[in-house]
């Protein structure tokens, strides 16, 4: 945006001959301005996106009366750290977190494997009814989970899985979303790579494990994050297939925390923070995978 007037001035002052020399100095200043502008834009957006999370953090450290007061407090002058201890012990958060991690881990691994296999088949293999089967896979996304619950509960009971991790994880070991996402990514891979691999005598399994999967790593990481989140955030199903605290997950813990601490909103906020800290850590770990470029992987491989 600041580039326009500078070039204009350059032409005005020195005519055609001097443009090159003139443009370098103000160009530098313009670039610095532009970079500064980008930081401002990024910061403003980050602030807007995170205002609510900041308020959650602050509220977890305030007294209930401060949260409810007419003049909102934006900085905790006397932080109430005990809210976290309260949330941890009252809410049995340690058990809930462990259960959530086991359930979520099983689901993520299962979904990645089934999605990569299916996505590969849809992208690279030729077989009868492929288009139809792809629509069938997509159709799984359109069945709202709520309507399958009654029959699925009966199935779980028939299998003798009530109150087990199998009941928590097995129904979610495959996802049409993942298969679709990986098909799209595999289709984006350059055709040359496939031809080159074919010339090297790679069969499908070797092409899948040595070329396609490494190159799709950013997408696979994104899918892992998504699977993790949707599994972690489940509420209704874990509540229905488990009978007590032994196997219950953290979302239910939060809801119970909220119900038992109606007069202590700050403890609820502390519980919310504790429940999403593991997710933030995980995200920071995956960040590298997400950032790693597709082309960078191609050069390495």
């Amino acid at each position: 945006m600041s580039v326009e007037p500078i070039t204009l001035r350059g032409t005005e002052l020195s005519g055609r001959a001097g443009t090159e020399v003139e443009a370098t100095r103000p160009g530098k200043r313009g670039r610095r301005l532009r970079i500064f502008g980008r930081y401002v834009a990024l910061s403003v957006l980050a602030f807007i996106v995170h205002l609510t999370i900041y308020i959650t953090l602050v509220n977890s450290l305030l007294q209930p009366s401060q949260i409810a007061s007419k003049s909102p407090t934006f900085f905790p002058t006397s932080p109430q750290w005990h809210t976290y201890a309260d949330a941890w012990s009252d809410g049995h958060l340690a058990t809930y977190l462990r259960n959530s991690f086991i359930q979520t881990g099983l689901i993520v691994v299962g979904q990645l494997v089934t999605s990569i296999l299916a996505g590969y088949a849809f992208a690279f293999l030729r077989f009868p009814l492929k288009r139809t089967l792809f629509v069938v896979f997509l159709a799984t996304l359109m069945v709202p989970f709520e309507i399958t619950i009654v029959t699925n509960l009966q199935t779980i009971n028939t299998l003798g899985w009530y109150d087990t991790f199998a009941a928590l994880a097995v129904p979610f070991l495959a996802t049409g979303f993942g298969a679709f996402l990986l098909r799209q990514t595999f289709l984006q891979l350059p055709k040359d790579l496939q031809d080159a691999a074919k010339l090297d005598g790679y069969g499908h399994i070797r092409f899948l494990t040595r070329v396609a999967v490494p190159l799709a790593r950013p997408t696979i990481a994104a899918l892992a994050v998504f699977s993790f989140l949707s599994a972690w955030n489940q509420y209704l199903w874990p509540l229905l297939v488990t009978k007590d605290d032994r196997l219950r997950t953290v979302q239910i813990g939060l809801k119970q925390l909220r119900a038992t601490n109606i007069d202590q909103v700050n403890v609820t906020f502390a519980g919310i923070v504790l429940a999403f800290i593991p997710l933030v850590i995980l995200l920071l770990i995956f960040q590298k995978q997400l950032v790693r470029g597709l082309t960078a992987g191609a050069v390495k491989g």
Partner: protein
Amino acid sequence: MSMPADATVHLRRGEAPAVAPPPRKRRFSRAVREAGLGYLLLLPAFVIFSVFIFYPFLRNFYLGFFSTPPFPGQPKNYVGLDQYKDVLTSSEFLDSLKVTVIFAAITVPVGIALGILLAVLAHQKLKGVGIYRAFFSSTVATSIAVASVIFGTLLSPQVGLLQGIQTEPSILQNPDPIINISLPVIRSFIPSVALTAVAVITIWQSLGLSFILMSAGLQAVPDEIQEAAEIDGAGPWTRFWNVTLPLLSPTIFFAFVVGSIFAFQTFGQIDLLTPRGGPLKTTNVLTYFIYDQLQFAKNDGKAAVLAIALFGVTLLLTLVQFSFLERRVSYER
């Protein structure tokens, strides 16, 4: 059919003897084995889908043929297709469908556009840009339940940020504004405050995911293409429209299809923020309507019909998107 083509390729190359695979005895042709592998790779997912999605879903068609008696304990009546006709022509259903469509029409495009905006801004060679990436993607750490609790508290007239804002009396008298949310400013240009509030929360909560998806898509775009365009003298705006967007189109298309499907199934935030479908049923989206029939009305016949209708509408929408939008998507091959 791919085999002879490959054979000619191998023969034509100069280094044919080294490259050509050693002749082996094969019991099946290559096409058959390829198809077999294809089915094998699809099998694990297919088994899970069959047991936990298709079977319970198909059972709904059967349930839809039976009307639920007004008093529990009475036997269910076989009514055949009558129940389908009654439910699908009711104004209750059509209103709910309208609410669902409006909700999707707000959340999907806005969410994707914001995701692209954040992803493009964070996809620059700047010092410390990784911190911003971490920031933008971190809203995925909030569940819809958490987001609802946060926003529900922040917007509540008792403890919320907006309690100081003077609410116009005329709005208070209007039955629409909301269970416990007062946003007078937005009131004038949107269909329902409650629905918009839920939409805003949904967009905020899904922003991190949208950002991650779009960032992953941008990673796949080779930097060289951008640089080539820059050398050719294309400004940032032209580069965005003519280079970035087309190359990002497979990801955007994906986000559009999946986003619409998810939007049609919105449930948690509706349940948590606007109980029982909101004021004057303005947030009674189809999934909530189904849940309401199951949970409160105990009418699983009607719920089954609604579930099938929801499925049909979403399937139709997806097929339309595939036939009209996928043409504009530029794949690598």
